């Protein structure tokens, strides 16, 4: 009778046992088994709430032994691990032949996606003003002569010469929204200079948001207007477009 009971018990054990998986982490360079010693953790959602938790996080005294710690544990890193993306659709801005007192423009579209945190800044700078062998197209100071790398101004006069840019937030259909750029450019008649690295100027923010963003875009218009006395030549420079998250 006793043997039958144990046999029945083992039978139940095999019939109803469940598969147990240890968590593993893989990369091309390493493989770690049992990477997370928590009891549970992660993101729970329903139609009305989102919750992240980490239960049973351990390793007390780690700082004393190892000399470092992640600032806020696994749970905080869960959100930090979200990716940050930046796209520029066209990198080659060829202005072709320039005609004095006729503004020549080129444009490209930048797109940014930030994690569920605090937004982003897009900064811009140039390695130097547009330069040919022996001469330079100066950075624009706009109609009023007062715009610079941190202040925009209306630039429509044909006798206001130089090189500058405008940025306007657009949606996925190309419709102007001014999202992210309204604090820097009132509309598409406003321009400003690029900060010149050669002149020790600091890259300046021209697009910014303080909320998470998904595929937020802006159209950047680059404009050159030269004077009749501008020396002939092939003028060139490099424009840095820099995306950083808000800390």
């Amino acid at each position, binding site marked *: 009778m006793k043997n039958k009971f144990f046999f029945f018990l083992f039978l139940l054990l095999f019939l109803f046992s469940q598969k147990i998986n240890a968590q593993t982490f893989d990369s091309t360079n390493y493989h770690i088994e049992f990477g997370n010693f928590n009891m549970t953790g992660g993101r729970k959602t329903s139609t009305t709430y989102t919750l992240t938790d980490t239960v049973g996080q351990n390793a007390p005294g780690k700082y004393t032994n190892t000399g470092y710690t992640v600032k806020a544990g696994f749970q905080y890193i869960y959100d930090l691990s979200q990716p940050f993306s930046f796209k520029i659709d066209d990198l080659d801005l060829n202005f072709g032949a320039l005609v004095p007192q006729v503004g020549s423009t080129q444009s490209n579209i930048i797109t940014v996606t930030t994690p569920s945190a*605090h937004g982003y800044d897009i900064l811009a700078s140039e390695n130097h003003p547009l330069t040919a062998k022996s001469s330079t197209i100066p950075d624009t100071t706009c109609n009023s002569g007062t715009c610079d790398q941190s202040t925009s101004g209306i630039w429509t006069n044909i006798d206001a010469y130089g090189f500058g840019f405008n940025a306007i937030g657009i949606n996925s259909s190309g419709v102007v929204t001014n999202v992210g750029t309204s604090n820097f450019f009132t509309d598409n008649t406003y321009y400003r200079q690029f900060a010149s690295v050669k002149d020790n100027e600091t890259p300046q923010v021209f697009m910014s948001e303080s909320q998470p963003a998904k595929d937020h875009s802006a159209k950047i218009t680059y404009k050159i207007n030269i004077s009749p006395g501008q020396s002939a030549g092939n003028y060139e420079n490099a424009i840095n*477009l820099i995306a950083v998250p808000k800390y």
Partner: protein
Amino acid sequence: MFDITLSPYQIEFVLKPNITITQVYEVTNNSDQPITLNTEVLPFLPQGNNGSVTYTDISSNPNISFSLSNSNLVLGQPFTLPANSKQQLILKIKTSPTTKLSDYYSTFFVYQSSPMTENDSNFSQAIGKIGSHILLSVSDEENPKVDATVQKFMATPKIKDIFFTPINFTGQVQNNTNYFFKTSGKITITKNNQTVKELTLDSNNVLANYYRRLTCAQQSVCTLSPPLWPGAYTATLTFDENLKISPISTSFFVLPLSPIVFLALVALVITFIIKTKKSKPLL
């Protein structure tokens, strides 16, 4: 085309002097073309009160060194990332034994490394660059003490109607220590000692000896939306106990301005109608 994803977008460590840590980043080329990339680490300073940074001409701290631990990659040397592919970059961060106990802020950049193409035209070459912030606290303690003060906490407007515009709560936190911390707490709005609403603060990093504007979860500005009952309200800003920041309160008043104006208008119209009827001559 430049179409790059960088993960994680920020790392935060507390570490002792003379420690080496590594952080794995994943760089993804989302475009259909290979791209030549390069890497660099630049120190930054906070700018403004909303988490922006500036890369002014500040020199790197010689006591903190950065390098790549990948066998085939060197920090500052270009590498090619094939189309639609990923690359892990293993950043090694080392503090020297003489590192001053303080915070150090940098950005790990991945940028396009393309030589200027020769052109027989007027030409600008756009270069994409994407960064991930590194917040390091070099400390003997795992949880450096927090010493902070609240500045300019206020509700606007102070007097408002029961309908229409919301009440906004603004303020900033000044960090008086050499170590950053995260805000955590709430704004409790009460009327007659009854809680009307609680707004949860965003978890924002307040950098060492700097300030940060308060923001609320799910809102860009901490806001109490109408309609509201008339009366005197108090908004109290409290932080989690571990931050040891004293609570601070502000008050505002909600008045039934629009109903009063509406009733006055109705009374005027009725008075006008009655007067008009009375003044009509009897036929």
